[in-house]
Each structure stands twice: as structure tokens, then as C-alpha cells.
């Protein structure tokens, strides 16, 4: 292993294990070290955001130079990015002008993209019924219908008795709660395994092999 690769592995293992000790033994010096190292990681995450922005701009500049199809959109993206970044640096993200920008651009586009999901999700459900009709897809779509019908009042009919009072709460709070708990525990076990592999140097997703 090259010296630089060794240094990266030592960094990951040493800082990670000290932070982990700080989680399970809330005594000095472990607790203090945990606070300091997490703070450093947050600062580095701030630098990583800047690296990400730089990379985004570089990729689009390359596309514009190569006159690739659709590169004019990249020009718009870079302009919007730089203007917002400079305005945010000058005024701060809480300034009324930045809030106005958020309300004029970010919120409407985000909400409209979310609204488009009503069409794409309905289309995806119909495609699933046509292409992959089995017990589990029927259970899945049946649950969707039960929860939606049990949640909202229907025109002319109003609330659906029994469905809204008993079936929907039981399905969404007990059965789905149980499934979600199983999934959560599974995810936590996966996180634990992956995290320990990184902390003991078995996986090195930071440039080492």
C-alpha cells in the first residue's frame, strides 16, 4: 500500500474509532474528542459542498466548450448558480431578498415537480398492474386504495365507515408499522456492518483499495 493510501486508512480508522468510543463512553477524553472530530467533519463537509459546486460548473463548462447538444441550459445553470452564490454570500441566506428568490424560483419548481408525481405515480401503478400482476402487486395497490379511501371524504358519500375508523388505522399503524420496523432494523444492521467494515479498514471508499 502506498504511503498516501496508508495515511488515509490510518486517518479513517483512528478518527472513526475515537468518535465511536466517544459515543459509547461519555467520559473525557473520548467525549471531548468526539465533539471536536465531528466538528472537523462538518467543516470538511462544507468544503466538500464547494468541491461539488466546482465540479458541477466544470462539467457544464466542458459541455459548453464542446458545443454539446443542450449546453445552452448549462450556461443558464452556471449563471443562476453564480448569481445565487454571490448574492447568498453578500446578503446571507436569511436576507429578505434570498427568501424572495426562494419563493419565486425554488418553491414553485419544487412544488410543481412534486405535483407532476400525481400523474407519473398513477401511470406507474397502471403499468405495474399490466406488466407484473401477482399477489404482492395486488396487495400493494389494494393497500394504496384502502389508505387513500380511508383518509379522504368521498364526494356525495362522505367518510367511508369501518374503512376509515378501523381498517385504515390498523393497516397503516399496525401492519405497516411492523413492516417498517423490520425494514428499519434491517437497515440498521446493514449500516452497522458497513460502518464496522470501514472502521476496521476492510472497505476503503476514500481512494484506497
Amino acid at each position: 500500500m502506498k504511503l498516501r493510501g496508508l495515511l488515509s486508512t490510518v486517518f479513517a480508522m483512528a478518527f472513526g474509532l475515537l468518535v465511536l468510543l466517544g459515543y459509547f463512553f461519555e467520559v473525557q477524553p473520548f467525549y471531548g474528542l468526539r465533539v471536536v472530530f465531528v466538528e472537523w467533519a462538518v467543516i470538511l463537509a462544507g468544503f466538500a459542498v464547494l468541491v461539488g459546486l466546482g465540479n458541477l460548473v466544470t462539467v457544464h463548462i466542458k459541455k459548453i466548450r464542446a458545443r454539446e447538444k443542450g449546453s445552452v441550459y448549462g450556461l443558464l445553470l452556471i449563471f443562476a448558480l453564480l448569481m445565487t452564490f454571490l448574492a447568498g454570500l453578500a446578503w446571507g441566506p436569511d436576507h429578505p431578498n434570498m427568501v424572495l428568490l426562494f419563493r419565486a424560483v425554488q418553491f414553485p419548481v419544487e412544488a410543481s415537480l412534486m405535483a407532476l408525481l400525481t400523474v407519473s405515480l398513477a401511470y406507474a401503478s397502471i403499468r405495474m398492474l399490466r406488466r407484473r400482476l401477482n399477489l404482492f402487486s395486488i396487495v400493494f395497490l389494494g393497500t394504496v386504495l384502502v389508505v387513500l379511501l380511508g383518509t379522504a371524504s368521498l364526494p356525495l358519500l362522505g367518510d367511508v365507515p369501518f374503512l376509515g375508523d378501523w381498517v385504515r388505522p390498523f393497516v397503516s399503524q399496525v401492519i405497516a408499522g411492523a413492516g417498517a420496523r423490520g425494514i428499519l432494523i434491517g437497515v440498521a444492521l446493514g449500516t452497522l456492518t458497513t460502518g464496522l467494515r470501514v472502521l476496521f479498514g476492510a472497505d476503503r471508499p476514500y481512494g484506497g483499495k
Partner: protein
Amino acid sequence: MPSVPSTEWIAGLVSFLLTLMVFSYLWKDNALFRVAVYLFVGVSAGYVGAVACRQVLLPRLILPLLNGDFLAVFPLLLGLALLGKLSQRTAALGNPSLALMVGVGAAVAVGGAVLGTLIPQVQATIDNFELDLTRSVSEQILDASTFLIGTVTTLVYFHYGARPGPRGPQRSRPVAVLGWVGQVFVAITFGVLFAGVYAAALTALIERLNSLRLFLGL
């Protein structure tokens, strides 16, 4: 003399136009939709960058350095090395900084998984069997048993261990049956999540349509 439109009105006009541009995707993927989306990505990325500088780097790094906190020199050097990732020639300089982030992130994830998920979720499954005098016993037993069966069978569904058999690797019979029950629980859980997302999307659609109506004064 014509009155000058207020900034609020201009913001409303931009919001109105961007909403229509995004909705034009329902017709087909077109230039107006792309303009709206690229503008959104640019503004969002710029905003995130400004937040990172003003709310992370300035108070946690620059101000401590100006106040003589020399411990902040170490993250400053690592941060500058991380900026080396912007070029392929200097990318390797940023590896130790990335390693620190990954190591600390892994430790936080392990701590969070054990203390924030595994222990509380297992404890909550056990606590379901504690009798609550305000509810009927049969209802509580039904709820707690469903929770226990659902949690265990869902975990079994994600168990991928298999033994070699005459028709290739196969799960044992009990694991296959429990996994099948778990799959039903997973299908119901995803159905409930899907319904939640769909309800949120419908709410967003109603809100956007209402904003278009209000801007037009209808």
C-alpha cells in the same frame, strides 16, 4: 403614469411562469421544462453553497481562526487539501480529508444505528406487550402479536442465506415460508408509504393550481 410593479408581483409572475413551464412536461419533455429545471438546479446549488460558506465555514472555521483558535488550522489544511479534488492531477491530495469524513461518518452511523435504531426499535416491540388498562386486552394482544410477527418475518424476508440443493441454492422451508409472510408485510408497508407520497403530491398539485388561479385573479 403607469405604476411600477412591486417585487412581490414580479416574484409572483416568475413563480407563475415557472409553474406553467414545469407543468408543460405533461405534454412532453420540452425546452421550457428544461429551462425551469436547470434554473432550479443552479439556484438551489448556489443557495446550498452560500449556506455552506455563511453558516458552516464562517462561524466554525474562519471566526475561530481570527480569534486565535489554532486548533482550527488542522481542518483548514484538510479542507484546502480537499479542494485538490477539483483537479485530476491533485485529486489524491484530498484522500486523507475524505478518509476523515468517511471514518467519522461511519462511526456516527454505527453509533446512530445501535443507539438510535436497533435498541429503541427492539425495546418498542417488547413494550407493545405491556398491558395498557385504557384499551381492551384482545386488541392489545392483536396489535402486539402483529407487530412481533411483522417485524420478525420482514427481517427473515431480507435474509439471503441459502443452501445448495438439487435445483441450485435454496432457502430452507421455514425461512421460505416466513419470508413469504414478510413479503406481504413489506408490500403493505410500501403501499402505505406510496399512498402517503401520493397524498403529498396531490396536495402539492392543489396548492400549485390554487396559486395559478390566485395570480390570474380568478
